[in-house]
C-alpha cells in the first residue's frame, strides 16, 4: 500500500524509483527526529508527537513495502507523518483535546505562523477534505513552497496551486459562516 493512495489519487502519480527498504535502525536515527519535530508542531504537544512517531515507525517495521517506489525518504517521511497527524486530528477521541493545544513556538519556517493561527488551522483541518487538509498543513502550517509540496505529493506545482486556491476558498467560506 502506498501512503499516497489516500491522497488525491489519479491526479498525483507517484513516480517509481527502485529503492530498497532501509535498515530500520538506521532509518529511525536518520528520520525520527524530523518526524518528531513536525508532529510536535502539528499536534501541539510532545507526548502525542512521540506516540505518533512511534506508531509511524512501528508501521514501517510491520510493512516495509511502504518504502518501495519512493524517490526521496525525506519527502516520504513528510507524507507519512502528515497523514498520521491528520488521522489523529480527525479522530474524535483526540480531537477535542488536540484542538485546544497551543502550538510550540515555531522557529523553523521562514513564514512564521502564530500559535493562534495554527490552533485555528488545526480545527479547520478536521473539517476539510483530506487532499485540501494535506496541502493546508504544508502550505499554511509549515510554510512550504508550491514546489516543495509538489515534490511531496508527486504532483505538478500547478496542481498544488489549484489545491492551495481551494484551501483558501474553504477557509473563506468557513469564516463567512455566522
Amino acid at each position, binding site marked *: 500500500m502506498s501512503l499516497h493512495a489516500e491522497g488525491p489519487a489519479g491526479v498525483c502519480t507517484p513516480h517509481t524509483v527502485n529503492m530498497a527498504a532501509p535498515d530500520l535502525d538506521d*532509518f529511525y536515527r536518520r528520520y525520527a527526529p*524530523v518526524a518528531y519535530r513536525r508532529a510536535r508542531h502539528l499536534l501541539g504537544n510532545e507526548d502525542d508527537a512521540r506516540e505518533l512517531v512511534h506508531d509511524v515507525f*512501528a508501521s514501517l517495521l510491520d510493512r516495509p513495502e511502504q518504502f518501495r517506489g519512493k524517490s*526521496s525518504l*525525506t519527502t516520504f517521511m513528510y507524507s507519512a507523518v502528515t497523514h498520521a497527524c491528520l488521522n489523529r486530528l480527525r479522530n474524535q477521541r483526540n480531537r477535542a483535546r488536540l484542538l485546544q493545544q497551543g502550538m510550540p513556538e515555531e522557529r523553523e519556517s521562514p513564514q512564521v505562523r502564530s500559535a493562534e493561527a495554527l490552533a485555528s488551522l488545526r480545527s479547520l483541518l478536521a473539517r476539510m477534505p483530506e487532499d485540501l487538509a494535506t496541502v493546508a498543513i504544508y502550505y499554511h502550517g509549515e510554510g512550504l513552497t508550491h514546489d516543495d509540496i509538489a515534490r511531496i505529493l508527486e504532483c505538478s506545482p500547478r496542481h498544488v496551486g489549484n489545491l492551495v486556491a481551494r484551501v483558501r476558498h474553504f477557509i473563506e467560506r468557513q469564516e463567512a459562516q455566522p
Partner: protein
Amino acid sequence: MSTSSDPGPTPACLSALAIDEWNAGETPSAMRAAHAAHIEDCAHCAARLAAATAEAEAFLQDAPTLAALREGLARPTPRGGAPGDHHAATVRRLPRIAAVTTAGLALAAAVMLMVRPRLPEDGTRTKGSARLGVYVKRDGRVKRAANGDVVHPGDTLRFTYTSQAPRHLSVWGDDGQGLTRYHPAPGAEVAQAEPGRDVPLDFGIELDGALGTEVFYGVFCQPRVTADAIRAALERTPPSPPRDCLLDVIRLPKEPAP
C-alpha cells in the same frame, strides 16, 4: 550555536523541507549549488541548520532507538521543557573541538583542490581502495597534511576522501576524551560516498587549545553497517574496522604554535 545574531528570514531562505533534505543529504541535485550558496551567505539558515542538528541530537539522546521510544511512552516521565532546554544540553556535550558544518563548503573545497598535492604514499595508513585526506588551514593558507603532521590550536581541518567503490562513509574523531562522529551530521545515519579522488566533505573542525594527539577515523562500509557497530569497533583497543568496512586512521599531534 547561539542564534542571537540571526538576522531573520528573507524570501530566499530555505523551506523547512529544504533544511531537512539538506541535513539528510537528499537535496535534489538541481538545487544543491543554489542551496549551498544561500547557506553560505545566510546566517538565519545556518542557524536553522545548526538548531535542527542540535534538536535531532537531543531527540536521539532521549530515544536512540524505536524500542527506547516505546519504553519512554510506557513510563510517564516528566518531559516538559522547551526545545531550548535540549539545546543547552547539547551545547554542554560539545567536544573540545567544535565541528563547523556545511557553511563554507564550496569555497573551502575550491581552495583545497587548488592546492591538492600527490597523495601521501605512507603504507602505514593506506588501506586498499579507500582513504581519508586532511587539509590544514593556518594563517589563511591551506596545505595538505599527512599522518603524523603537527597541528596547532586555531588550525582549521578539512577532510576529503578517496574511494574506488561506492561505500557508506563516516568520519570520527577521538581527542582523548571520547569518540565524536563528524560525518555524517547528527541525525543522519549514513552518508553515501561515491567513487572519487579527494572528494571534499562538508564539515570542518577548528582545533581548540587543548594539546594532545587528535585521531581521526575514516570508516568506509558496505551498506547496513550501523553507526553503533562502527562506534563499538572504534572503541576497541586497538580500534579495528567493523566487518565489511575499511578503516583509515590519521593521527595529528597538536602542539603549541611556535
